[in-house]
């Protein structure tokens, strides 16, 4: 999914089809603690696989944020290069 996005496909058809990433990012979290699969529940209380999955998903979205930041700060053509205009992340 991440590779498909890096290749230029829209987030909505790649990373943002992930139920887990959606739970972390929707509604938009105000802090890192907010970014939890179950809002209001501390990450430490999650089961081990969920803690690891949460860390992995956060790494994935933050790297995506850096990619997005770099590409959109430069002169590029939406659609002919990549579709980056949906749902800002991070």
């Amino acid at each position, binding site marked *: *999914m991440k*590779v498909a996005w*890096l290749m230029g496909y829209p987030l909505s*058809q790649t990373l943002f089809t992930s139920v887990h990433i959606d739970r972390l990012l929707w509604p938009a979290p105000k802090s890192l603690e907010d970014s939890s699969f179950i809002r209001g529940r501390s990450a430490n209380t999650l089961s081990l696989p969920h803690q690891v999955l949460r860390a*992995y998903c956060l790494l994935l979205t933050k790297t995506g944020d850096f990619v997005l930041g*770099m*590409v959109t700060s*430069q*002169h590029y053509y939406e659609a002919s290069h990549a579709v980056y205009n949906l749902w800002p992340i991070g």
Partner: protein
Amino acid sequence: MEVLTCSDFDADKRNAISVRVNFRINVLETLMQHADGRSPPQSLFPIMHESLNKAEKTHGQGIVVLEAFSTKLQRRLASTVPPRPMVTVSMDEAWKFWHQMLDDCRDVFSVHQAANSQDLITAYQMFAYSSPQPSTYPRALLQSFLSLDGMVASRVETICFLEEDLRSLTLPASQLLTISYGAYGRLHDGSRKVADCMQRFTDQFEQTFLNVYRALCLNSCRIRRTFCHALNDWDALQGQVEELDCIIQEALHEKPTEYLPGSPPTFSFSLSSWVYHHKINILRLTIQMGFEQTVYAPHEMAAMYWYLSNVCDIHLSHLERISHFVSANDTEIKRGSMDGASKAKATEECKQALDRLYRQYSWAKATQLLAVTLHGIFTVLQRLGIFVWQDPLYSSDALRYEIRMKPFLNLSIPEALSPDDFASHTQLADLTSQEVLTQAMTSGTSAKRAWEEIAKTTWNVAPREQKGAQVVDEKWNADVKDCLKAAIGASLCVVTLEKMINNEEWKVKAAKETRLPGLDEKSRWHRWWIVPLLPAA
């Protein structure tokens, strides 16, 4: 990670997860460095490649959980577009993509080894023409180097970058560039006008010049498209700059010199000469990229190779003109009353400019010779009925000419030819096929020699540090060698045609079997040089 090690998780699965999380951490570290305008430590890249390899090996440990993904989430988008399908790529493709992207992110920093504007464009071109072309992120990263903290490639300010290029081509050891630094107070009479002109010039070209580099960071189709627009912009600006040149000539009391024997004395037109030089370079690249992107139909090959050779001819004459005025300036400096150190510096600048002009000349000459050879080959093939426009019912030669030459028709110089003149130049109607082949043979041999000479040089005019520039060096050498192979291939093609031109049986066979090699075929020696594949003699 500590949590993982302490757990009683299955060891293999723990390792597999740990490799993936570590990989993401390293990627994040790399991207953070990029965002801060820093080069990440080189040691990170082998670790990330290693992580990818380990991840690939442990891929079988995972289970596909389809429920973890859903297109229903798209309903949250503020859009009326119905949900679109998920896009996935095969794992093989994904591993390959990551390895490639990591290599590109590492190699992109090699452009910092370019010591001047000319070397920088070579480095950018080598990166842009890599096959497969780098993905969007490394290209955006490359583009970010053009304006990082107001510096170009972490070396010079934008305005100095432009002046450096002017100095290295048309204005070595020129007082004009001193004036452009804004030294109004020290200027003699009339130079305020000159300073204003220079200010207008730098205002106009500071970004326009940098945009040529930016264009090379786009995807390859966009590069050509952007160049098509840039051509017309540069053409319009050239007219304005000629006016600035006239004001400067008058203000500085420039004396005209005789350039061509018998013709009236002329002025150097240094600024507009610089614009014209870059405009022709963009024009040449636009034409050549058309071959790469299969823009031209097989029946247009002969005409487009002729047009390319014609543009190179014009460029060669222009480079000779610039060299003439630089040499004249050099002679004047040597005769002049400058003090020793200043004189030495000025003559060194002139020498460097002449060297750079010679490099440009060699490249344009080699390109022109190979284009002439291929034009000859395709012309003879068309006379044999191969690669001929088959269906003239719904169009005319004039309309096809108009659509093909659309990006170039509005240029004031080089002025577009009328369709009839263009046809007479490209068809070589007054020469027999044998004569065309003899000419192609001569130019093919010279093209081979010219590319051999280029292959003996290096990618950079001014070596800064060899360390780290190996990537550009390798890419440049491979590119020149491919051009050389194309020149040899074209010569062999001419030999076959010369031998078989009167063999009726072979001609029938050739009409059926001759084809153009595709981009991914080995016999397509170079993306810009299409040597037709003929049946064996």
